[in-house]
C-alpha cells in the first residue's frame, strides 16, 4: 500500500511537472525562436520480489526541446540570403528611380541641350539662341553633377550602414559569448539548458541577418562562430571585435576589418551574405559602375563635343576652343604603399572607355600589372626602364609611370578613369559669341572662271580621322585619310628617322627602318603598327596641336587648273604633297592644310578655286549642324552607341539588376518562409495541442490523486481492523 501511495505520488509529481511544461509552452508560444519543450517520462526502476518485478511508478527523466538542427540551419541560411538580396534591392531601387526619372534623369537635359544646338544652327547670328545654348549646357552639367551627388550620397549612406551593421555584429557576438559563458558556468551536467540554447540560436539567426556565419559546437556546449573564410567571431566565452576602416585603395569606401593584434585587416572581400553582403555587392556591382557609367557619358559627350567644337569658328572669327572641361581620370595611391613611383592617367580615346575601375600593381623590375576590376582581365606593363614611361592606350586611357626606381613590390594604385566624369564636367565657354557655329574655312569658285567646275563647301579634317601611312619603298611613303577618302600626300621622302609627320592637326614621329609595304595607322589619335609590318619602323604616340586642327587650316590656298585642265596646281602654304601636276578627277576629295574639298564638273584652263578663312562668316551654321548631329552619332562604346544609348544602357543595366534583385528577394522570401514553416512545424507551439495536453495531464493528476485516495481508504480499512 505504501507502494501504491509512492507510485501515485510519483504520478502526481510527473503530472505537475508536465503541466508546468505545458504552461511554459503556452506562455512562450508567441516568442520568436522558442522551441516547445516536453517532459520525457520514464518508469522508475522496478522492485524485484518473489513474485517478479513490480513497477514503482513514473519518473521525469529530462525536459527536452523539440528541435531539429537541420531545420534551424535552413532558416539561418535562408535569413542570410534573403537579407542580402533584400538590402541590395532596397538600395538598387533608389538609383533605379533617379536614373530613369523623366524629370531627374540625364536624357531630358541632353535632349534640351541638343535642341538648343539646333536652335543655334537655325539662327547662328542670334545671341539669344547662343545664350540659350549656354543655359542648356549649364542645366545639363548641373544635372550630371546632381545625379553624381545623389549617387555618392548613397555611397555615404552605405558607409554609415556598414558602420552600424558592424557595431550590431559586435553586439551580437558578445551576447553569444556571454551565453557561452553562462552555459559553461552552469556546468556540464548532461542536461540541456533549453531556454539558453533557444536564445543562442536566436542570436545566431539575428547575426545571419547581417552576415553569413558558420558555427561549430564544442563538446563543452559552447558555440564558436566564424565569418568570412574562417575569421573567428566568437570562441567560447570570448568574442572578437570587427571594426571599420577607410579602404587603403579608396579612402571614400568604408571597409570591414578584423582586428588581429592591433592591426585591422580588411576582410570585406571575404564577407558575403546578409546585410553586409548585400551592401558590398550593391556598392561593387551596381553603385560604383553606375557612377562610372554616368561619368563615361559625361566624358564622352564633353570630349567629342569639344573635338568638333574646336573644328569650328566662333562669332568673332576665332577658332573654336573647348566647350566643356573634361574630367581627368583619378589615380588613388594605396595608403599602404611604401614606394615613391607616381602614376598619372589620361584619357586617350573616349570611344574605348569602360565602366570599370583598374588596379595597378608593381611586381618588381620594370613590371607592373594592370587589372580591370570588372572582370579581372590583366595587362602586363613593362616600362623597359624608361621614366617617365607612357603606356599604349588601354581601354581608352593611358598611364604615365614615373620613378619606377623608387617603387616597392606590392605597391598598388587604383585608377578610376570615369569616376569623376559627371562631377568634374563644367562649361569653359561663357561668352555666347565664343560658340563655334561656323566652319573656319570657305571655298570660292573664282568669278572669272570659264569652266563649269564647282567646288564643295569643304570640311575640316578632324585629328580623330583614321589615317594610314603606307611605305611604298623603304624611304618613300604615302598618307591617306580613310575617313574622308582623300590622299593627304604621296611619295613623301623618309630620311631614316626620327622624322615628324604632321597632318590633320596631329604630329607623330616615325623612326627605325620600315620595309616597303609596311603601314602605320592613326585612328582617334591612337597610333598602331600594321599587323603585317616586316621592318623595324616605329611610330610614336600622336600629339594633337593646341588648336585641335591643322595649324595651317586657314591659310589661303588656290587651286589652279593647268593647260590642259586635266591637272591642277595648288599654291599657298600646304601640308599635302605633291602640289603641282595633280591629276584632276571630278568629285574626288582634295585635302591640304587639314581641310577636304571636292571639285566636280569641267573646269577650264586657268580656272581657279580658292580655299581660305571664313572671315565675317557669322551666318555660317555648318559646325553647329555637325555639333547637333552628334546627338545621333555613335561616338561611344567603340562606335556602337550614341550618348543617350550609352546612358540608356546604364538605365537598362541598373533596371535589370534591380529587377533581378527584386525577383531574388521574392524567391528568397518564399524559401525563408518555407524554412520557417518547417522549423515551426517541429518546434513551434500549437495552442490546441497544448490545450489537449493540459487536459491530459490534468486527468493524469486527478487519477493519481484518486489512487492516493484509494490507498488512503485501504489504510483506513486496516487501521479499523486493528482497532476493531
Amino acid at each position, binding site marked *: 500500500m505504501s507502494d501504491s501511495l509512492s507510485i501515485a505520488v510519483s504520478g502526481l509529481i510527473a503530472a505537475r511537472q508536465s503541466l508546468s511544461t505545458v504552461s511554459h509552452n503556452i506562455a512562450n508560444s508567441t516568442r520568436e525562436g522558442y522551441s516547445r519543450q516536453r517532459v520525457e517520462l520514464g518508469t522508475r526502476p522496478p522492485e524485484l520480489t518473489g513474485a517478479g518485478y513490480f513497477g514503482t511508478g513514473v519518473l521525469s527523466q529530462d525536459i527536452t526541446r523539440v528541435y531539429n538542427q537541420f531545420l534551424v540551419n535552413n532558416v539561418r541560411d535562408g535569413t542570410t540570403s534573403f537579407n542580402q538580396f533584400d538590402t541590395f534591392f532596397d538600395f538598387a531601387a533608389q538609383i*533605379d528611380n533617379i536614373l530613369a526619372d523623366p524629370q531627374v534623369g540625364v536624357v531630358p537635359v541632353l*535632349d534640351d541641350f541638343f535642341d538648343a544646338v539646333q*536652335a543655334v544652327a537655325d539662327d547662328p547670328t542670334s545671341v539669344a539662341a547662343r545664350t540659350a545654348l549656354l543655359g542648356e549646357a549649364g542645366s545639363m552639367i548641373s544635372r550630371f553633377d546632381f545625379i553624381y551627388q545623389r549617387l555618392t550620397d548613397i555611397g555615404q549612406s552605405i558607409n554609415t550602414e556598414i558602420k552600424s551593421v558592424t557595431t550590431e555584429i559586435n553586439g551580437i557576438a558578445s551576447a553569444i559569448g556571454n551565453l557561452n559563458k553562462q552555459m559553461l558556468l552552469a556546468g556540464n551536467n548532461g542536461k540541456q539548458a533549453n531556454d539558453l540554447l533557444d536564445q543562442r540560436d536566436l542570436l545566431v539567426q539575428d547575426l545571419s541577418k547581417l552576415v553569413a556565419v558558420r558555427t561549430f559546437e564544442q563538446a563543452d556546449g559552447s558555440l564558436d562562430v566564424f565569418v568570412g573564410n574562417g575569421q573567428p567571431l566568437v570562441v567560447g566565452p570570448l568574442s572578437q571585435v570587427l571594426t571599420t576602416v577607410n579602404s587603403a585603395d579608396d579612402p571614400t569606401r568604408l571597409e570591414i576589418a578584423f582586428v588581429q593584434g592591433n592591426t585591422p585587416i580588411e576582410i570585406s572581400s571575404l564577407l558575403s551574405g546578409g546585410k553586409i553582403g548585400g551592401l558590398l555587392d550593391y556598392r561593387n556591382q551596381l553603385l560604383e559602375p553606375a557612377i562610372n557609367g554616368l561619368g563615361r557619358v559625361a566624358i564622352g559627350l564633353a570630349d567629342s563635343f569639344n573635338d568638333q567644337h574646336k573644328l569650328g569658328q566662333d562669332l568673332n572669327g576665332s577658332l573654336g576652343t573647348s566647350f566643356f572641361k573634361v574630367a581627368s581620370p583619378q589615380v588613388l595611391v594605396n595608403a599602404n604603399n611604401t614606394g615613391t613611383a607616381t602614376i598619372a592617367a589620361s584619357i586617350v580615346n573616349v570611344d574605348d572607355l569602360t565602366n570599370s575601375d583598374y588596379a595597378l600593381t608593381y611586381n618588381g623590375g620594370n613590371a607592373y600589372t594592370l587589372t580591370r576590376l570588372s572582370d579581372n582581365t590583366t595587362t602586363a606593363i613593362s616600362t623597359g626602364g624608361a621614366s617617365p614611361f607612357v603606356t599604349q592606350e588601354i581601354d581608352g586611357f593611358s598611364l604615365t609611370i614615373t620613378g619606377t626606381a623608387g617603387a616597392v613590390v606590392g605597391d598598388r594604385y587604383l585608377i578610376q578613369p570615369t569616376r569623376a566624369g559627371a562631377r568634374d564636367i563644367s562649361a569653359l565657354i561663357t561668352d555666347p559669341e565664343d560658340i563655334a557655329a561656323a566652319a573656319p574655312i570657305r571655298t570660292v569658285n573664282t568669278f572669272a572662271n570659264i569652266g563649269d567646275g564647282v567646288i564643295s563647301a569643304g570640311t575640316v579634317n578632324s585629328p580623330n580621322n583614321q589615317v594610314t601611312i603606307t611605305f611604298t619603298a623603304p624611304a618613300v611613303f604615302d598618307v591617306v585619310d580613310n575617313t574622308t577618302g582623300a590622299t593627304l600626300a604621296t611619295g613623301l621622302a623618309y630620311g631614316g628617322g626620327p622624322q615628324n609627320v604632321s597632318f590633320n592637326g596631329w604630329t607623330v614621329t616615325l623612326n627605325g627602318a620600315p620595309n616597303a609595304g609596311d603601314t602605320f595607322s592613326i585612328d582617334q589619335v591612337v597610333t598602331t603598327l600594321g599587323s603585317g609590318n616586316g621592318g623595324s619602323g616605329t611610330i610614336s604616340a600622336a600629339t594633337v596641336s593646341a588648336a585641335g586642327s591643322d595649324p595651317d587650316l586657314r591659310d589661303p590656298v588656290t587651286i589652279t587648273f593647268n593647260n590642259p585642265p586635266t591637272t591642277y596646281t595648288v599654291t599657298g602654304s600646304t601640308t599635302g604633297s605633291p602640289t603641282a601636276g595633280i591629276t584632276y578627277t571630278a568629285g574626288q576629295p582634295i585635302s591640304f592644310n587639314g581641310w577636304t574639298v571636292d571639285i566636280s564638273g569641267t573646269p577650264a584652263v586657268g580656272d581657279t578655286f580658292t580655299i581660305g578663312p571664313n572671315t565675317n562668316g557669322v551666318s555660317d*551654321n555648318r559646325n553647329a549642324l555637325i555639333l547637333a548631329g552628334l546627338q545621333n552619332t555613335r561616338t561611344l562604346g567603340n562606335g556602337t552607341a550614341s550618348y543617350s544609348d550609352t546612358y540608356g544602357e546604364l538605365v537598362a543595366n541598373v533596371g535589370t539588376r*534591380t529587377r533581378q534583385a527584386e525577383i531574388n528577394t521574392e524567391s528568397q522570401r518564399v524559401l525563408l518562409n518555407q524554412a520557417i514553416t518547417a522549423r515551426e512545424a517541429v518546434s513551434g507551439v500549437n*495552442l490546441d495541442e497544448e490545450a*489537449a495536453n493540459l487536459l491530459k495531464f490534468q486527468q493524469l493528476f486527478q487519477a493519481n490523486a484518486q489512487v492516493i485516495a484509494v490507498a488512503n481508504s485501504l489504510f483506513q480499512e486496516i487501521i479499523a481492523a486493528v482497532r476493531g
Partner: protein
Amino acid sequence: MRISTNQFQILGVNAILDQQAKVSKTQLQLSTGRRLLQPSDDPVAATRVLSLTEALTQGEQFQKNIIYAESRLGITEGKIDGVINLLQRVREMALQANSGFLSTTDRDNISQEIRERAAELLGLANSTNVNGEYIFAGFQGQTQPFSQTAAGTFNYAGDEGQRFLQISENRQIAVTESGTDVFRQIRNGNGTFTTNYNTANSGSGVIDPGSVNGSFISDTYTITFSQPTPTSPITYGVTGATSGVVVAPGTAYVDGADILFNGVRTNVTGTPANGDSFTVVPSTNQDMFTTVENFVSALAIGTTTSNGAAASNNQINRVIIDLDRALDNVVKTQARVGARQNAIANQKSLNDEQILDTREVLSDTQDLDIAEAASRLSRQLVSLQAAQQVFIKVQNLSLFNFLS
C-alpha cells in the same frame, strides 16, 4: 503536418500584407496613369521609353527647324519674285528701246527709269531678314554684300556659303541662296559665247548674239569686214586668236546670212564699213547689275548717226540676251526654292506622322490600360477582403474557447 499557432497567425497576416502590396501598386499605377512606375518594372521598356522620348523631342525640334526653314525660304522666294518682275520690266524696256522709233527724250525717260530699277535691284540684292541678316551674302550675313564702286563696277563682299537646316534625322535642306548664285554667276551672251561690236566701227552692221552650232571651240574670234572701195563687194574673214584663220578673208558678205565657224552660228545685218570688226569670245560670268548698267550706257549712245544707232542696237541686243540669261538664272533659283518648299512641306507631314506614331508607341509602352487596371484593382480588393475575413474566422477558433 503540425502547424504552430504562431505560424498560423503569420501566414494569415502575410496573406493580407501581400494583397495590400498588390492593391497599393495598382493604386499608384492608376493615380499616375503610368504602367511603368520604375525602370526595374520592365528595364527593356524603360530604355525604350528613353529613346522614344528622345525621338519625340528631336521630332519636335525638327518641326521647329522647319518653321525657320519655311520663313527663310519664304523671304528668299519673295525677293526673287521681285527680281523676276524687275528684270521682266527692264527687258520690256530694252525691247522698246531697240525698236528704233524713239526720240532722244524717250530714251532719256527710259534711262531715267532704268537707273531707278537698277537701284531697286541693288536694294533687293541687299535684302535683310527680320534679324538684320543680309539674305544674299552667303556666310557673311552681317556684311552688306553688294555695292557699286566709284568706278561704276559692282562689288560683292559676300561668299558662296549656303546655310542648311536639319529637317529630319538624316535630311538637311538649303535655306539660303548666295548672292553669287542668284545675281552674279550668270553666263553672258548665249551662255557659250558673246558677240561684240568694235566701238570704232563706222558702218551700220549689227551682229546677232548667235547660237551654238555643234560644239563651240573656245577661242577669241574676230570677224573683220573689208570693202577696199565703196563699189567693191563687202567681204569678211574670221580669225581665231589661237585657231588662226577659220573663215578665209574675202568671203562674200550677205546681209543677215549665217556666218558659221568652229561651232558658232551668227549673222550680221546692215552695212558694215571697210575695217569694221566684231568679236566672238567665250561667255564669262556677268552679274545682272552690270547687265542693267550696260543698258543705261547703251541708252546714252547718240542714235542720230547710222553707226551710233548700230552701236546702240548692238549693245541693247547684248543687254537683251544677257537679261534673258539673268531671268533664266533667277527663274531656276525660284524653281529650286519652290522645290525645297515642297520638300519641306512633305517632310513636315512626314515628321508629324512620325511624332504621332512615336507618341502612340510611347503611350503603349509606358501608359496604363485604365480599364484593365481598374478591374484588376477590384479583383485585388476582393482578395484582400477574403484574406482579412479568413484571418478573423481562423483566429477565433481555439480549443481554449471550449475549456471551462
